[in-house]
Every structure is written in C-alpha cells, then in structure tokens.
C-alpha cells in the first residue's frame, strides 16, 4: 500500500456530512427534553435592582426560571490557559450576573420550557430592573481605571539600539473588534440519568476534557459521571467550544430538573455572546542603522478585552507581543501591553490570535519604514529576514509557557519563491496595465511567522478490531478541519494499509480521557504524533504475537498491507483479524498473565512549539468612486514542514484567507455610545461571501520539516489568516499612493477620504483609530 501521509485523499468525514448524516449539537434529541432560553442584559453597565420572574413562570409550558439567586454559590468560569502569573480572579465572568451587569448580552436569568417558542415568549416576560451606571466603550478611556494586566516581553538592549539608530520610524495602528462567526451557533444538549446521577453532554466540540473538568468541579460531581461528546460542528475557529456560562447552566438545569435540557444559541445571541477578538491599538517604533538593518523594536499595545476575562485569560495580548518580531532579525525588543476592560462582550482567541493583529501592524511599520528610508518594500524585508544560517534562533522570552526557539527554515527562500511566482503569474504587469488605464491597482506583500504544535502533550489510543480494522480514539476534536482524515492517514501508515481501513473517534471523554483538544494549530502535530506513537506500539505487539503464530523472529516480520508477514514473503502471513483473534482471552498465543487485546495508548510530549512561516501577496483595486476594495488576486506561500494531506492544508490556507479578508475589509463589531451593539445581524456584520473572496493561489512547501516532532509537521490551521490584514493593507496603500495604512478594517468611507488626502500630495495619513463616535449620530 502506498504511503498515506502526503496524499490528498478525500476527507473521511465528507460522506456523512454531505449526505446529511452528520450529528451536530442540536441533533441530539431525548424523550421529554426541555428547552432553555437565556435572558440577557439589555444595558451595558448597571446594578441589578431586581429580577421579576413572576409573569414568565405563569406562562403555560414554562418549567423553571432561574437567576443567580438560585445558583449554588458565586460561580465563575476559570481561565483555561494561564500565563504571566497575573491574578485575574476578580475579572472572571459569573455564570449568571448576581449584582452587576457589564455588557449587553450578559446572562442574567434562564427560562426552561417545554418548547423553544414558549421559552422565548417567557424570556421576554422576565423583568430585569437595572440601575444604569457609567459606561466605558473606548479602550483608551479604560486605561486609567480598568487596566487589569500590564506587562512587557522582550530581549536585548533596546535603549542602546535606539540611541545608535540612524533612523527611527514610528506608526500607530489599530485593529477593529471582530471574531469568528461559525456557521453553526453554539448548541448544547444534556441527557441526564437520574438513576445514576450521571450525564452526557453533546455539542461542546473543542476541548471536551478540560470542559468536563471545569463542569465537574462546578457541579461537584465526579468527572467519571460526566461524558462529553464532541459531535460534528459547523466550525469553531477558536471561539466555539470554550467553556461559556451556558456550558455550566444547561447541565446544571438538567440535573436540577432531572430531565434532558437542550439549548441552541440563536444568531442574534451569538453576536453578543460568543468571544469577540482582535481589538487592539499599537504604537510601534523601529530603529534602523544607515543600511536599513533593524537594530531594535518597541511596541506599546493596548488590548480591549471587553467586560470580563474568559477562558483564554490574557493569551491574546501575550501572543501579540511574543510574535511581533516575526520572521525578522530583531536584536533588541521591548513590547509592552496593557489589557483593559470595557463594557463590551468579553474576548478570547480567534484563529491566528495576536498574529493577525501584530503582523498587520508590524508589516505596515515596515512599509512606512521603506518609504521613509527610501528603499523598496521588498528590499527592506529581504534585508531583515532571518537567514537559514541563523536558525535555530532563540528569542529570550517565552509565550504560552514555552521558550521561543525558531527551529529551522528558509524565510528568505520562501519570500523569494513567492515573489518569483507572482512575477510568473504576471501580477506586476497587471498592476502596471491597470494603472496605465487610470485605475487604482495596488500590490501588497507581507512576511510572517506562525506558531503551532503547542504542547505539552496529547494522548491517543490505537486498537485493532475483530475485522482487522484500525480504530483511533483521539484527544483532538473534529472542527471541520479534516483531522479525522489526517489521523487516519498517519495511523494507516503504521500498518501499511489504506486510510479507508481506519476509523477515528475524536473528542469522546469516555474513550479518550486525556485529550487536550483541537486549537492553536496543534492537532496534526500533537494528536498526529500521538497516533503515530500508539500505532507503532500496536505494530510492535502485532509482530510479537505474529512471531509466535508464524514461528519467526519478530525482527524478521513486517506489518504491511493489512497483514503481519515474514519480510520478503507473501504467503507466510497472518491477517490483522487473525492476530486480533490470537489476542483474545483464552487464546493459546496469550500467556496466562498477559492482558488481552491489541491496543496501545501513547502520550506525545513536546517542550517547544514549532514555527511555520509564510508570505502573502495581494493585488487589489480601489474604486475611487465608492471607496470599495476588490481583491483581484491573492497568493499564499507557506512552509508546512510536512503536509499529511496537501489538499486539506490548501483548504486551511484558503479558508483562513477569506476570514482574514473579512477582518481587513468588512467585519467589525460596532457599538454606540451607550454600549448598544450595532452589529447583531448579518445585515450589519459583514462576513465575506463567495463574491468577495478571490481564488487563492497557494505555494505549499515542505522544504523545512519541523525538527521538534517525528512527522516533521508544522501545523497549518492559521497561516492563511495571519498575513491577510497585512498584505491587503499594503496593497491598498500601494493603490492609493500612501506610505502605509493605519487601521483595519479599511472601510470605503475612510478610503474615499484617504484618496482625497493622497490627491493633495500627502503620503502619510494622520493617525486615525476606530473611534466609536462615527456610529449613530
């Protein structure tokens, strides 16, 4: 059988998904199931004077209405990923607001009813009396009173670098608040078994083992009485599957009412309830010598985290700082971030957290520096990219608890390869031709560093079944990224079989109680290597038993084509099913004290992340009549180390790019001065559609396998997004004849204004940030 890793085989999950046989959060149905509806705060900040549930309770069909007063105690949702040793306990979100509400959409009560319509009718009858208090919407208004974390990351002697500098270039850059909007909203179904006081929870697909631990702690139940079933999901992208207030409330209500309870978030709720992300303001300064070589970098970042700290803690601002130097040679760096709270929806990670923001800001700084120093945008990058001879490159700072060691690669090589491809595709000519016609075309380029494979560990089980199939119980979760297929390919190669012979079950805490879930582009690297390890152990076991059955030494045997055979023969073989039989209790091949079965559990541990890298190039046209931006062409060059399934890697990159395009041009959560969200439908929150997203040219390279894992994979989940804001900003500034842009998203009204500015011979924009006063006058 041909090696499965490296093949673009069709996705195993597609048959069930495309034939309507997928099981999503709302598909789990149980007898006498109740429906929950969350009552949310209509105001952005205030003290709860009273909640009157009388009318809601009186509505026929209503079973229960609960408020914080009914909860066991003052429950708050803990941080999943703790960094920087900063105590955030005072800022954690309660599962229901008890004394104060801090954003529009904060849960204050829950109605449980016989059906979803009655639940929504009753929710409208809950009267929440709130005395409104002072509201903070703009992050800079929160700096004095509501900064909850203020820390630095860095290395080297920054003072000296700036003192010695021939040129210092500074830029203010802001990124608008937006987030992942998965096609499937959140959904939870809890089946409660009163007889055993146990429950099964369907629908929280991402980090089920962690969520179970939190839930068991809050319910004061034994973890083994809770089974989390991570079912199919319509996308996650960082936001979906984290532990939210509802992840406690729905199971708690099921136990309280001793009945199954289901909750499906509607889209209007989703826009105010799901983790928001990205909202940051950056002040960057870079010092150069007279050759245009970077001597030092300074960053002062403000990060708006919304009303509370959620499960991601402060990893987004930390990652922003940690990844800011990117793929460049930065001898000295000092990054400071202040995390503030405002009266908006709390924030968490969104695909490429910290990197989308930081890459956009840094690359605009380089564009501005190129103009200031009078060297080309390409040249300034090529001069400052780390060379392969300089790798591995350690940066004396850590993120997510691990030191940053850029393992290996050829950043300059990939950069040149991307530009050569752009030339080959004739995009420079297109730009020139369009300009000759008087059109506003611009080409933008950026280089970026990604991170992936965050440990410290992941566990997988591999077993042989009675028909000789291979079964994988992985701790990853299937978010639509194709991890079932990827793990099947990796498992298949340990036995020399087709991936068709492998079944993968992800995210079931009963089957795999040690999984760390799927996030941070970690699953191919972590789960993949765990599956590889478990598969090898099972293959060893097959050779052990096979050597008895075939009366040959284990080292003379090979596991291939679904059989165990004497190397070099075809007939001197036993099938995997035969070996399974031989491993059953009572088998004559099994010693009396030997455990039955053909299975292994393997834990893969890793100390350091691995760092993929890439280059984005975009060709855009700005319509001066409307300020509209059309992305005409787009290229992503990406080093993935080892592509287990190249088609899936390309799919990840293309999908990421369309989300990045949204953040660069369209998507923004807006609020008015009273903290009312202005973007609560798809009319106002502009997701890119097929009409706005161009075909993306992908240059996928496997030139630098990761040195930190046996497969050599670098992770591919986020690199399609990371550089999009940067490359599109660069392309737009090129189209407008400006040195750089200073904010995302680049909205048409602003671009019309920028065009007028550029027409007056001004090349640099007066710094503007996404202030909120433009909304609703």
């Amino acid at each position, binding site marked *: 059988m041909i090696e499965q890793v490296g093949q673009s085989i069709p996705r195993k999950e597609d048959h069930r998904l495309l034939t309507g046989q997928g099981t999503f959060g709302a598909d789990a149905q149980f007898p006498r199931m109740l429906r929950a509806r969350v009552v949310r705060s209509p105001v952005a900040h205030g003290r709860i004077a009273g909640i009157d549930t009388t009318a809601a309770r009186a509505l026929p069909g209503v079973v229960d209405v609960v408020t914080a007063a009914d909860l066991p105690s003052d429950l708050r949702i803990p941080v999943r990923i703790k960094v920087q040793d900063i105590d955030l306990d005072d800022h954690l979100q309660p599962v229901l607001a008890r004394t104060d509400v801090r954003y529009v959409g904060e849960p204050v009560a829950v109605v449980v009813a016989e059906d979803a319509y009655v639940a929504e009718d009753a929710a409208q009858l809950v009267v929440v009396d709130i005395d409104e208090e002072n509201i903070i919407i703009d992050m800079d208004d929160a700096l004095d009173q509501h900064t909850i974390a203020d820390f630095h990351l860095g290395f080297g002697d920054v003072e000296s670098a700036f003192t010695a500098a021939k040129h210092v270039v500074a830029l203010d850059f802001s990124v608008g608040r937006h987030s992942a909007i998965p096609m499937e909203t959140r959904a939870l179904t809890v089946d409660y078994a009163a007889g055993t006081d146990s429950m099964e929870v369907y629908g929280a697909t991402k980090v089920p083992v962690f969520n179970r631990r939190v839930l068991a702690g809050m319910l004061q139940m034994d973890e083994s009485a809770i089974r989390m079933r991570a079912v199919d999901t319509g996308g996650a992208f960082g936001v979906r599957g984290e532990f939210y207030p509802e992840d406690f409330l729905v199971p708690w209500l099921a136990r309280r009412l001793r009945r199954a309870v289901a909750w499906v978030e*509607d889209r209007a709720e989703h826009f105010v309830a799901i983790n928001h992300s990205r909202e940051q303001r950056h002040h960057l300064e870079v010092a150069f010598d007279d050759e245009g070589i970077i001597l030092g970098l300074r960053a002062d970042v403000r990060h708006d985290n919304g009303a509370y700290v959620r499960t991601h803690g402060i990893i987004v601002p930390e990652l922003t700082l940690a990844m800011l130097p990117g793929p460049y040679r930065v001898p000295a760096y000092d990054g400071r971030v202040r995390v503030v709270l405002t009266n908006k929806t709390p924030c968490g990670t969104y695909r490429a957290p910290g990197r989308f923001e930081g890459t956009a800001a840094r690359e605009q700084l380089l564009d501005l520096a190129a103009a200031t120093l009078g060297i080309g945008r390409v040249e300034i990058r090529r001069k400052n990219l780390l060379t392969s001879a300089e790798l591995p490159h350690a940066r004396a700072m850590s993120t997510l608890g691990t030191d940053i060691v850029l393992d290996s690669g050829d950043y300059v090589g990939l950069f040149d390869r991307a530009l050569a491809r752009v030339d080959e595709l004739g995009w420079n000519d297109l730009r020139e031709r369009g300009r000759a016609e008087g059109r506003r075309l611009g080409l933008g380029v950026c280089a970026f560093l990604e991170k992936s494979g965050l440990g410290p560990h992941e566990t997988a089980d591999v077993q042989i079944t009675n028909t000789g199939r291979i079964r994988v119980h992985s701790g990853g979760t299937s978010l639509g990224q194709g991890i079932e297929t990827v793990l099947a390919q990796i498992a298949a190669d340990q036995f020399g079989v087709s991936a068709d012979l492998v079944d993968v079950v992800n995210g079931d805490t009963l089957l795999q109680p040690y999984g760390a879930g799927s996030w941070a582009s970690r699953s191919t690297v972590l789960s993949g290597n765990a599956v590889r390890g478990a598969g090898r152990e099972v293959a060893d076991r097959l050779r052990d038993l096979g050597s008895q059955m075939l009366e040959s030494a284990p080292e003379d045997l090979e596991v291939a084509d679904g059989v165990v055979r004497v190397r070099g023969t075809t007939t001197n073989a036993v099938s995997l099913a035969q070996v399974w039989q031989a491993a059953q209790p009572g088998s004559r091949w099994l010693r009396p004290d030997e455990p039955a079965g053909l299975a292994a559990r393997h834990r893969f541990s890793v100390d350091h992340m691995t760092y993929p890298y890439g280059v984005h190039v975009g060709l855009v046209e700005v*319509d001066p*009549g*409307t300020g509209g931006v059309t992305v005409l062409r787009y290229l992503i060059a990406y080093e993935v180390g080892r592509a287990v399934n190249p088609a899936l890697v390309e799919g990840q990159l293309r999908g990421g790019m369309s989300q990045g395009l949204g953040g660069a041009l369209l998507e923004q959560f807006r609020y008015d001065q009273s903290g009312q969200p202005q973007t609560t439908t798809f*009319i106002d929150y502009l997701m890119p559609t097929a009409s706005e997203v161009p075909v993306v040219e992908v240059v996928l390279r496997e030139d630098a396998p990761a040195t930190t894992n046996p497969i050599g994979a670098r992770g591919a989940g986020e690199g399609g997004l990371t550089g999009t804001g940067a490359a599109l900003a660069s392309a737009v500034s090129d189209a407008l004849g400006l040195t750089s842009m200073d904010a995302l998203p680049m909205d048409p009204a602003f671009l019309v204004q920028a065009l007028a500015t550029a027409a007056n011979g001004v090349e640099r924009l007066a710094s503007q940030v996404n202030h909120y006063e433009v909304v609703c006058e």
Partner: protein
Amino acid sequence: MKPAPFEYYRAYAPAEVVELLTGLGDEAKVLAGGQSLVPMMNFRLAHPAALVDINAIAELDYVRREGDSLRIGALTRHRTLELSRAPEVQDGFSLLPRAARWIGHYPIRSRGTVGGSIAHADPAAEWCLLARLYDADVVVLGGQGTRVVPSADWFTGFLSTVAATNDVVTEVRFNRPRAFGALTEYARRRGDFAIAAAAVAFDVVDGRCRDVSIVLGAVAGEPLRVTEAEALVEGAEPAAPTWAAAARIAAAAIRPNADTYGGERYRRHLVDTLIQRAFAEAFASDASVSAASGIR
C-alpha cells in the same frame, strides 16, 4: 429568533384579504413573499397578532402591457421580472429586469414580491426607486373598493405609506416607458442593502435628453426624485459632462443621515459616483457595460 405567537389566515381572493384585515384590526399584516416581514418577526421587531397569507391568490401574479402602462400583479416574484425577456417589458421598461438583479440574493428574488416591496416601502428597495422613476401608480383594494395612488403620493417616510390597515396592494402600474434606463447601487457586499442607489431614465430626441427622471435610494426616508438634476439634463447633450453636472447637483441636494456605513460626505460622494455611472450605463449601447471593466 422564534416569532411571538400569531394567528394565521390564508386568503383566496383579494376581497377576502380586505375582509379578513377589516375583521382583524390594525394588528394584522399581509404575508406576501415574507422576505422582510418574517425575519422581522423572528427578531421580534414585528409582533403582528395575525397574518393574512395572500400567496394562494394566483390572480395577483401577472405582467401585462396596456398601452404605455406595464401592469404588474402584486404577487409577481422579483425573479419573474428578472428573467423576463418579453417585448411588453423590454419595450420601454428594459431596465426592470436589469434592476431586479440587484435585489438581494437568489432565494430572496425567488420568493419576494413586487407588491410586497412597494407595501414595505424600504427607501433602499429597487421597486420603490423604479416606481418613482417610472411614475408608477399603486393599485390598492380597501374597504371602499379599488383606488389608484400615484407613487408620488404613496410613500410617506421610512417604511411607511398612505395605505390603511385594511388595504392590500393588488397591482403596480409602471408608466412613461423610455428608451434609456439604468439602476446602480453600492453595497459593501454583493446582494446587501444599498448604502446608496441611483436610477435614471430618459429618451434621446435629436441628440438631446428628454423626459428625464432621476431617483435616489437609501439617502432619505423614501425614494427621492431629484428634480433639480432632472431639469439640468432635460434638453442637454447625452454626454459625460452632462452626467457629471447632474451628479453634482444631486449630491448637493440630498440630506442623508450618518450611519454605520459612513457620514453625510461619503453618501454625497457615492451619489455623485452612482448618478454618473447610471447615466453612462444607460446610454452605453450595450446596457451590460459597467464602470469597471477589464481586469477581473
């Protein structure tokens, strides 16, 4: 996003609609294509106590020409007009099928109706612009029988018309056919509500523009005829300088509110652009030519 409780009635004849509406009082709503009403109900922004479904009234689904008047039954779907190549539509009203392509997305065009759009009176709606552009008459059946309301008198502000609560729109009559016409819009995504829209119609007689109409959408509470700009184009040469001058006047004439999509200045800029483009598109021999061409 589940609607509040409501009663549901289905009518089988226009008179039955009026009868039902009269009996149900002012909390009842007519359900035609439901492309605006149903989402508003799901968001609980609309709480009608009752719906009167007119979708079974087949006699309200027609397109026919009577002299200079194109009569469109209220229940005619956008998609019917979009796909129409019939001579009675093409002759003098060829803009209607082209303009219908701007309406939302394919499922919306398949379900939404001309009468529903006119009754809903969204100032960004294509049919509302076209009604003003072609001096349409709105035919209404009410308690006192049938009456014909000129579109100039129909719209009374944002999402409001002169219709009484027991009125049902039965027909829209487009008048004043003209040889040249175009409607163009700008939205940030294909299919979205226009941030601004412009429609023009005119004839060219002896090298001069005649019988000029200019209407703007999404810049005021109702579709806006720009008579000052019309007067400028009337009798002028059909050429870019004329379009530019008309656009300047129109841009100055509007008093748009600022919203999420940009302030007053931006909307004026858009109006300037869109009017020039609408005229250029209308006058181009191939009506499918748009302002941007070439590299795509």
